[in-house]
């Protein structure tokens, strides 16, 4: 009996150890190391690290690029919730409506297509769309008589960040839409039938039945979208060559990358990573507590 109990206490170790070891070495250890690195100054090319205490954090507070990045990340979050989550929900509700049941699969698959294209292909494509002279967008504006609106979308500090944000909306709205479609499909049909008998119109049915029923999904996708907005790297890195013109379209992740791997200030890059960690930790806690309340 005793030996069997010992065996069952140790036996699961064999199963979970490989997973925990990989997580430890490549996720948790770097996380802790990153915290420590943020108090040091060092280069990627030399093993020597100089302890400088809070110097990196002092620099961070004075760094105006951090403010620009935070502002851009916030814009990203705001627009993404508006378009990906709110518009994604509206699209899902329309596509799940009986009146266009026969056309819905075509639209659904098409709107979902960008999701399965890799981000670099999407960004290269939008490089062609935004191209000042031979780009599709400016050509289209000329075609419909709005030539005055044509501009170098990615080359101007005023429009670069918005043009970049637009690409992410094009890329990801279908993702959130699909999540809402599945959520709406899970709503019992009887609820809609009852409302229809009561004489509720489509708009009313959306607000009285659909919206409350997908409340949880709405919250989850909002948190995911906002978290993602504070981690954005690919789009500004590729489209505006690292947040240009100047730093007008920079985000926190791009700023971290450039500080570390471009200016070779690895310690300072770690400090920016700490900021990113703190921001995403806050949203993770929000999501976790909300999930728990949903389970009760």
């Amino acid at each position, binding site marked *: 009996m005793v030996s069997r109990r010992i065996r069952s206490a140790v036996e699961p170790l064999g199963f979970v150890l490989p997973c925990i070891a990989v997580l430890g070495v490549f996720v948790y250890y770097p996380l802790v190391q990153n915290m420590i690195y943020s108090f040091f100054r060092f280069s990627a090319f030399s093993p020597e690290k100089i302890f400088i205490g809070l110097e990196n954090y002092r620099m961070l507070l004075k760094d105006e690029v951090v403010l620009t990045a935070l502002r851009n990340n916030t814009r990203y979050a705001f627009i993404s919730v508006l378009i990906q989550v709110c518009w994604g929900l509206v699209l899902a509700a329309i596509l799940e409506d009986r009146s266009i049941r026969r056309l819905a699969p075509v639209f659904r698959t098409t*709107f979902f297509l960008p999701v399965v294209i890799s*981000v670099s*292909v999407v960004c290269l494509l939008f490089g062609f769309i935004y191209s000042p002279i031979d780009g599709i967008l400016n050509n289209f504006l000329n075609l419909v008589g709005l030539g005055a609106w044509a501009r170098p979308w990615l080359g101007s500090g005023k429009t670069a960040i918005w043009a970049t944000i637009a690409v992410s909306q094009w890329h990801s709205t279908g993702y959130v839409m699909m*999540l809402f479609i599945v959520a709406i499909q899970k709503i019992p049909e009887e609820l809609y039938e009852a409302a229809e008998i009561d004489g509720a119109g489509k708009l009313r049915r959306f607000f009285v039945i659909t919206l409350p029923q997908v409340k949880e999904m709405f919250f989850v996708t909002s948190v995911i979208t906002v978290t993602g907005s504070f981690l954005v790297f690919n789009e500004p890195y590729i489209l505006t060559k690292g947040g240009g013109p100047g730093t007008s379209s920079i985000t926190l992740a791009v700023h971290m990358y450039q500080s570390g*791997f471009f200016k070779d200030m690895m310690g300072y890059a770690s400090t920016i990573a700490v900021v990113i*960690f703190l921001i995403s930790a806050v949203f993770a806690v929000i999501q*976790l507590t909300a999930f728990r309340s949903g389970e009760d």
Partner: protein
Amino acid sequence: MTGAGVFHYKRNSIGPAQVLILAVLCTGFVMVAYPLFWVLMSSLKTTEEITLNVWAFPAEPQWQNYVNAWNRGISGYFVNSLIVTLSTIAGVLSLSSLCAYGLSRYKTPWLKYVLVVVMGGMMLNPQVCLVPLYGILTRLGIRNTYLALILPYVAFRLPLNTLLIRSFFLSVPKEIEESATLDGCGSLQIYGRIFLPMSRPILLTSAILTAYYAWNEFLFAIIFIDSNKYRTIPAGLMSFRDALQIDWGPLLAGMAISAVPIMIFFISVQKHFVRGMMAGSVKG
């Protein structure tokens, strides 16, 4: 059912609201579909044709754009992406199913801390570990190899997939395991002969989600790999663009080659993919 659908369709399709909704949907359709169509169309044009008139169809399809793109690097990136993606799937599936088995079939008290460690991993982002990971991979001597991508990819995908598979394992009835134990099966045999075959659908979902991540990952791919030899498609396309400069025909052909096969794959397994998205609700 179809009859009722047609009936509703007819009854509801008269109002101006329906026309407006259809117009909005069609606008969205064009905004999504035209750029994709444009890539395919322009990939068959010469660079001069592209610059002269963005709307025009190719005078004569330039199939050699595809040959050019394939020979000038895309083939290598494609193979690299395939190697990295398949290895990542193998690593994620084996490690996370093992861990999920341990977590779901034993009641040992310390396992709840393991669960916390796994769940915590879901909240951590690659960005936060980037600088130290660069150092770790350098010290291990595997930066600039396939392993520099595979190991971090596996690590960051383990939490989600372990939880996904664990929730499936938890639903397996105890009796199946008990009868297997009576037949003299060890726990490793129960895992391999009963649990793995039973959980094929969830493993497939996991594999598809992992493929989606590994095929598209960009941040690690550009930082941990310097050599063109090991670049995956997302990173490779960037150097491809820089090498081609304004040779747009082959660049567009390269984009099409990188996008179309994987698009067809994901759309054909859409059902499993969406199920995984729902279970994870985590964006890549």
